[in-house]
């Protein structure tokens, strides 16, 4: 890997705790090993995009969120879920 775990975490703007450093390094090494199999492949001239099944022109008017509606939904349920990770 060209970059260290610390450098990559800066690049991705992610803080890593001391206790997870080793685990993340191991995961990155495993992923890098998979990526290295691509070394023997030639760089293509054009990118590939999985085309949608036919071209669909949008017929509707994009739906706008109504902020009052959103707040009403949130306020009606917020107390059920903010008290911890488990509801059970």
């Amino acid at each position: 890997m060209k970059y260290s775990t610390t450098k990559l975490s800066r690049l991705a703007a992610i803080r890593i705790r001391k206790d997870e450093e080793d685990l993340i390094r191991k995961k990155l090494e495993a992923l890098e090993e998979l990526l290295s199999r691509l070394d023997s492949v030639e760089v293509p001239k054009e990118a590939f995009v999985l085309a949608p099944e036919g071209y669909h022109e949008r017929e509707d008017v994009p739906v706008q969120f109504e902020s009052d509606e959103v707040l009403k939904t949130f306020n009606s349920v917020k107390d059920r879920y903010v008290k911890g990770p488990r509801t059970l």
Partner: protein
Amino acid sequence: MNLKGRSFLTILRDVERGSISPDDVNEYYYRNALALNNTINAYITLIKPQQSSSDGPLRGIGIAVKDNISTRGIRTTCASRMLENYVPPYDATAVERLKNNGGSILGKTNMDEFAMGSSGENSAFGPTRNPINTDYVPGGSSSGSAAAVAAEMAPIALGSDTGGSIRAPASFTGTVGFKPSYGAVSRYGLIAYANSLEVIGVISKTVKDAELLFKMIAGRDLRDSTSFNVDLTSRDVGRPRILVLRSFVRMADERVQKVFYDSISKLERAGFIFDYLDEFREIDYVLSSYYTIACAEASTNLSRYDGIRYGPRLDVAGNWRSYIEAARGFFGSEVKARIMMGTFILSAGYYETYYLKALQIRKEIRAEFERIMKGYDAVYIPTMPVLPWKIGEGIRDPKMAYAADVLTVLPNLTGSPAISIPVGKSGEFFVGGQFIGLRGDDMKIISIASEAENALEVVRHE
């Protein structure tokens, strides 16, 4: 009332006849879920059933929904501390369509955080456990959905499949897992991990159950431009012509191979016609291509979790960078590693080295798959190369965990439909086999899997 072993379809028939009420059904699964969840940890959020009053075909019966599918007014966490208290203001199209058919939501199921993982071990709310033996993983990332169906905590469930996330847990828990063609089901409301690979699908006890729910959620949606109207007419393929990819089968361990080849003998006796292909040209690159694309898309999709747009609001001294870094520290280690790798892959100088090459290989894999499928109805390979491992082993050995995806990522790269059914047992665990078809041939694959299920009779459901 005991509904143990009953398929969703037979339950619906009994409700239709009036011999059981939808409220009894909901109460049965809710009580089971309450009793077993401390052990299995299949649900992150369980909803107390309300009095059912629906006239739709689903009659108000509760369905388990993976926790990365948006549900209006119900917490949707993606099994992450990042979205611990996130309550979506809208329903995903798949959920909306279930509700329009009279369905309700039984609860939100546990999963690998942001659907990254194939074991169910990477959840901020603790690992899901395999109902067959709770020391072992149930497979992932739709771990809770599969465990809930297998443990009678739900009659049927929705999951999502990015690289095998529906089929892997189906294989490990002895359930049926159907991954539709890419675009056959709208992704609107599915919290994005890798957009070009993922799709919403079904985990159920039988193939017919999966077909029923799939038909309800499938179809074009104006809010997802990649969605299309897949052909939903039932297909009778007569004696199906099946191609076995030996190079994939060889990657499975001996126990899995034995059960798999035994299933072929039984299916041949039932009229299936098998041919064998020894080499698949791109096999060495399938996993590399998948992980390159998935990590790159993940790093882009998950950039919205910065503590401003989504994620926890923090009180952090310093500048914006330290604020965002602290907020993104709420991800688990698997998610962090994949975002970091994705950022690296997309950085200047490495985009061509990895990302463009992976896209090129994906194109070749798709062309190769279409070429070998000529004259055949489906490809048949094992779903997982190994049997379930003990909880914790996947975390300690990430190479093993990533390699376990080798047989499931092919349909995600090609956009094909694939369905995993139990095809035999090895010791106490089930072995899954998957049928894969051409994109759009969803009903053909379902029909073949249904015939295979009847011929093999690995799990008997009423």
